[in-house]
């Protein structure tokens, strides 16, 4: 199949009229994935922003079949949906799940791990806005070091989140999943290509897409895409793929010096001092040493 572009994707909108905040990164991730997957996609969404903004009865914003699962059960409901469609003799369908970072890395990780183990034929997309944004910004295990959330407030002694962001991509890949990828709403072409690729691989697929949240990150609504790009360009969010036991980078770090502007531009990091930023830099550099050593270059 050809690479999806702005010109050849469908004009249909499958996620439209929703009540997400202006400039929401997560809604862009859902919109573009569904445009690639098409009308035969059945979406499963747990509690989280995208279910809260998409299903306000009677305002129902998915044009394709979509339903809300329990918070912990995104992947297990997807398994059920896939088995049901197969039992009915349906053809050419895609079962896709859209869960947030909390619904994936904290609450739904057991169901996700089970689904990868069963290797059911479906696509799990984690839109990562780096905290529980739907309930007003509480820390999840994908919240980065130093970020202010309501449960990791910044004070004199402790400055925001003291824990590192969980490496969900490599945790999933360690299962030996047929296909896993990281993506960003800042590079939608790359994201669409990965969704298309996932739809063509048989078995379980996982895509982790970074989706900045203007409300929770403290950036302007029109800066969402810029910050998503910056996260990748400064090396904090490497875009990569995993398949056949091999990791491959799909985009190199552009400018390590961008990290300071990325951190300083967001309200959730404004309490950080220079040594904290140097710590974040050292962690990033250690990660890239590992990536350069063992991942395939783009």
């Amino acid at each position, binding site marked *: 199949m050809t690479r999806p572009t*702005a*010109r050849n994707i469908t*004009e*249909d*909108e*499958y*996620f*439209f*009229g*929703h*009540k*997400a905040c*202006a*400039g*929401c*990164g997560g*809604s*862009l991730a859902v*919109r*573009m994935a569904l445009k690639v997957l098409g*009308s035969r996609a059945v979406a499963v969404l747990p509690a989280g922003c995208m279910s809260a903004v998409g299903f306000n*009865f*009677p*305002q*129902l*914003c*998915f*044009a*394709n*079949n*979509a*339903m809300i699962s329990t918070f912990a059960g995104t992947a297990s409901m997807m398994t059920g949906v896939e088995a049901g469609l197969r039992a009915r003799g349906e053809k050419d369908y895609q079962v896709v799940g859209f869960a947030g970072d909390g619904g994936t890395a904290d609450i739904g990780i057991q169901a996700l791990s089970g689904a990868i183990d069963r290797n059911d034929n479906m696509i799990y997309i984690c839109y990562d806005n780096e905290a529980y944004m739907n309930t007003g910004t509480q820390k999840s295990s994908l919240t980065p070091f130093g970020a202010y959330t309501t449960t990791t407030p910044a004070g004199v002694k402790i400055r925001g989140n003291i824990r590192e962001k969980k490496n969900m991509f490599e945790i999933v890949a360690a299962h030996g999943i047929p296909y896993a990828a990281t993506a960003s*709403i800042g590079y*939608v*072409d790359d994201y669409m290509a990965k969704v298309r690729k996932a739809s063509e691989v048989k078995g379980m697929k996982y895509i982790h897409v970074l989706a900045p949240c203007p409300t929770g990150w403290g950036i*302007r*609504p*029109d*800066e*969402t*895409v*810029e910050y998503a790009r910056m996260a990748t360009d400064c090396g904090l969010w490497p875009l990569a793929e995993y398949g056949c036991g091999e990791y491959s980078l799909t985009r190199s770090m552009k400018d390590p010096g961008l990290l300071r502007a990325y951190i300083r531009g967001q309200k959730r990091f404004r309490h950080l001092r220079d040594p904290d930023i140097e710590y974040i830099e050292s962690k990033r550099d250690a990660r890239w040493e590992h990536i350069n050593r063992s991942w395939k270059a783009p």
Partner: protein
Amino acid sequence: MKPHLRTCIPEWRSDSLPDNTAYEAGFLVTKNSGWRDIRPVIDTKKCTGCLQCYLYCPDGTIARCGNKVSVDYDFCKGCGICAKMCRHDALRMEAERR
């Protein structure tokens, strides 16, 4: 295929209320235009049809229209991402006048 505004809004205690938790997909009853205090305006002379605004609109309110684009002002929230994405200075944000 796209969720669209319905003229008939299901009323409470009417027969149109769902009797279970499932209901018709793509059923819209309200617009989002009231959220906006700035609106994107397209300069069609400068627009090259590169479709970056269409690609990055979180609300899907920019549509391909021939070799240009058009904005659905009923659902645009005025976030301004389209104007940032435009490399040709063909989209600018203007104050909403009421």
